[in-house]
């Protein structure tokens, strides 16, 4: 009897102890300082690892997988497992990163899907939005909310919230943060209008200021033989087979009609609607059909992808198209072949007296997640702090950690992100330095653009693209103008893909492309109304409902 009583006593004391542990856990979440909780649960030796950039002692090992961008170069003797970043993680942060596997980015998604399906995740994994959602539903991820709060450095939190917090929100499910977004800029994916100014001069045309000007320019480029070979072999306005995209896409054109296809926009009542099915889109399509009839679009555009269209531009057959700011990089080949070729990026134009606004897609497509039950879940946040500090922080060493000798060292970092305004800031700083003729305030990356622009101005036309992007009249100046004049329309939906999207998006996008192509190539415009009905019936209604429910919950 006595023995039994003893056991009962022991058991109850365990209970009390475990209750106490629970309650102390709760109070930690409630906001005790890191030091206190460290003292409670860890050995004092670990205190340093609690700070955002503190070193783990003894060092820890985290496993990871990753895609490696095509063309990533390494210095002699280095590899993805052994480079300045991995060495710095180990020596300064006490984190040894072990890659279970790596693969070129193009195959990463496929390989990761297999790893997810066979329940074979490492501690830290970069995932897409839909994979993130799937993993959250499977309850396979660590909740990072409190870890991000506790370990995130000021710099990290600053960069992560530079877009108004949408990025963080997009990785938050039921109030819990499950992924660290790979920050990037949607601004870099707005359209500018690229136009051949030497052709404009030759034909005595002004720079297009309105949509009518654009159409007149396109017409002149087709009919007045701008390349002077006495053959009608030039195109008016460049368009690729997907209609939308980064090069010779039509977003900029649609934006001129105040239509924002492929994004979610707020209507007058504050409800979200899909841009592709709005009446403004119909008007833009009707105009494109007219242009096609007049021969201002390539008759065979339905078979030509962006690369094909760029061949026409570089071959001196096309002088007008909408595209991203970096398209100058693709035009460089044309400039190399024909140095007389001059392009200028200009602001998108409007059909009426309302200024055109450029649509800004939600740019974040990669999230870093931590496997549920990982031994050191906070390591992901700390590595991100470390990366940001070395790249953009006060002690940043861009020539060591970012770019050196044309080697993209930043590619080796485990977690990555860019301040959304990075390119714009680079442009602003470069222009300021050019005016002051003083490059001392520039970081290494900006200094590179600065030097290239000077070299171009000194006659090296192989560096022309730099002037066209980062120079005073470069494409980023156009985007800076959008940003200053509030000429931007953000995609209003930035959550994970909803169930309806996962189920129906492929079908809906195919339908949209088919119908739009048919309409442009001369189909009846009534098809657009049929398309709207069909779109709604094939899942669009559901998606709109989900998107609005999401908006209401924000």
């Amino acid at each position, binding site marked *: 009897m006595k023995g039994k009583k003893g056991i009962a006593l022991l058991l109850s004391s365990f209970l009390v102890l475990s209750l106490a542990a629970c309650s102390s856990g709760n109070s930690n979440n409630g906001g005790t300082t890191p030091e206190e909780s460290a003292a409670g649960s860890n050995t004092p030796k670990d205190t340093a690892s609690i700070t955002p950039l503190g070193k783990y002692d003894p060092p820890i090992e985290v496993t990871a997988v990753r895609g*490696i*961008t*095509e*063309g990533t170069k390494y210095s002699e003797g280095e590899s993805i497992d052994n480079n300045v970043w991995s060495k710095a993680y180990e020596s300064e942060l006490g984190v040894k990163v072990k890659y*279970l*596997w*790596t*693969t*070129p*980015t*193009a*195959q990463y*998604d*496929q*390989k990761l899907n*297999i790893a997810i*399906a*066979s329940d*074979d995740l490492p501690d830290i994994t970069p995932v*897409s939005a839909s994979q993130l959602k799937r993993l959250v539903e499977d309850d396979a991820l660590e909740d990072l909310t409190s870890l991000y709060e506790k370990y995130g450095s000021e710099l990290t939190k600053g960069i992560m919230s530079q877009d108004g917090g949408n990025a963080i929100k997009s990785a938050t499910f039921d109030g819990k943060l499950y992924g660290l977004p*790979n920050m*990037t*800029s949607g601004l*870099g*994916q707005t359209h500018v209008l690229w136009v051949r100014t030497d052709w404009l001069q030759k034909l005595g045309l002004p720079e297009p200021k309105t949509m009518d000007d654009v159409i007149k320019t396109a017409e002149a480029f087709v009919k007045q033989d701008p390349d002077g070979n006495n053959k009608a072999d030039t195109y008016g306005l460049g368009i690729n087979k997907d209609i939308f*995209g*980064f090069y010779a896409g039509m977003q900029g054109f649609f934006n001129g009609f105040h239509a924002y296809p492929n994004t979610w926009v707020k209507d007058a009542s504050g409800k979200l609607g899909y841009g592709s099915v709005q009446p403004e889109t119909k008007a833009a399509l009707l105009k494109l059909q007219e242009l096609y009839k007049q021969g201002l679009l390539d008759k065979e555009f339905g078979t030509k*992808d962006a690369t*094909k269209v*760029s*061949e*026409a531009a*570089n*071959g*001196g057959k096309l002088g007008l198209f909408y595209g*991203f700011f*970096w*398209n100058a*990089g*693709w035009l460089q*080949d*044309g400039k*190399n*072949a024909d140095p007389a070729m001059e392009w200028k990026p200009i602001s998108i134009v409007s059909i009426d007296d309302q200024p055109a606004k450029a649509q800004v897609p939600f*740019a974040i*497509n*990669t999230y870093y997640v931590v496997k549920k039950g990982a031994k050191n879940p906070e390591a992901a946040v700390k590595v991100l702090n470390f990366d940001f500090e070395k790249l953009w922080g006060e002690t940043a060493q861009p020539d060591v950690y970012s770019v050196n000798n044309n080697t*993209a060292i930043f590619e080796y970092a485990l977690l*990555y992100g*860019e301040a959304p305004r990075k390119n714009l800031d680079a442009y602003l700083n470069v222009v300021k330095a050019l005016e002051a003729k003083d490059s001392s305030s520039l970081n290494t990356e900006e200094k590179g653009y600065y030097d290239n622009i000077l070299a171009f101005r000194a006659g090296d036309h192989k560096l022309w693209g730099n002037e066209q992007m980062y120079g005073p009249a470069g494409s980023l100046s156009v985007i800076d103008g959008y940003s200053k004049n509030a000429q931007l329309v953000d995609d209003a939906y930035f959550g994970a893909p909803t169930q309806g999207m996962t189920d129906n998006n492929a079908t809906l996008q195919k339908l949209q492309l088919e119908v739009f192509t048919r309409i442009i190539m001369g189909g009846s415009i009534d098809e657009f109304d049929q398309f709207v009905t069909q779109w709604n019936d094939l899942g669009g209604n559901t998606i709109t409902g989900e998107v609005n429910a999401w908006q209401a919950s924000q």
Partner: protein
Amino acid sequence: MNKHASISRRTFLAFNYLFLAAVAIACLFPLLNVLAISFSSSAAVSAGKVSLWPVDFNLKSYSFVLSKPEFGRAFLISLGRVAVGVPLNMLLTILIAYPLSKRSHEFRFRNAYAWYFVVTMLFSGGLIPWYMTIKMTGIIDTFWAMILPGAVPIFNVILLLNFFKSLPDEIDQAAQIDGASRWQTLWQIAVPLSAPAVATLTLFCIVTHWNSWFDGLILMNRPDNYPLQSYLQTVIVNRDLSLMAAQDILKWAEVSDRTSKAAQVFVAVLPVLFVYPFLQKYFAEGIVMGSVKG
């Protein structure tokens, strides 16, 4: 051709040859285009000037490809894969096909064994179980992951089995009367008599091993260990830009290397192009003979 063929017959033949020649040219066209691109300057290619004849002829892309360590390494891995995988394929194919070609009274449970193999051809476990099996066997991320999982090509076994069946029983029996063991009958009678089939199947195996890219991609943990086609796939494939981060697209914008891609494709095609003529004479014969039963 018969001298006395009717006019309609001759017209038919003329058109038939023309048509087949056109088809053959259509097949050659993409290859010639790639070849022309690989010899052209990248400026000419990006201006869309190259179709069948190189513009601004140069060998830069080839010297670039040959100096690229990744390409050479992947090429060697693929060669090794063929050198080890094909003999193993053929050995197992022959050893399985021969007993299965015997009738049930010679080989009891022959049908059961035959079904055991055929079932794997009809049903597969699917990608994930396949992957997990290989992972749990511990050969993942090794050279053997590309060799062992496909070591027994059932389709080839069935082709060869039918070919063996078509050999007259009498030859077998004569060999046995002369004192040949089963083993000797197989290697000294059956296999030499089946040279066309064996040559054809060898070609199949070479091409399969040389061309497979998916297993390398999924089973290898480092791009350094990719065989040639997996590597090429990563170089050539059209990216889905919606999946790429903005900074990647930016980088991609700076790369305009269609000429070197074309050179890599072409170099990768060469070995199989070289092997074909030597095995071709068996090729058509082997396939047809396997399907005709004596």
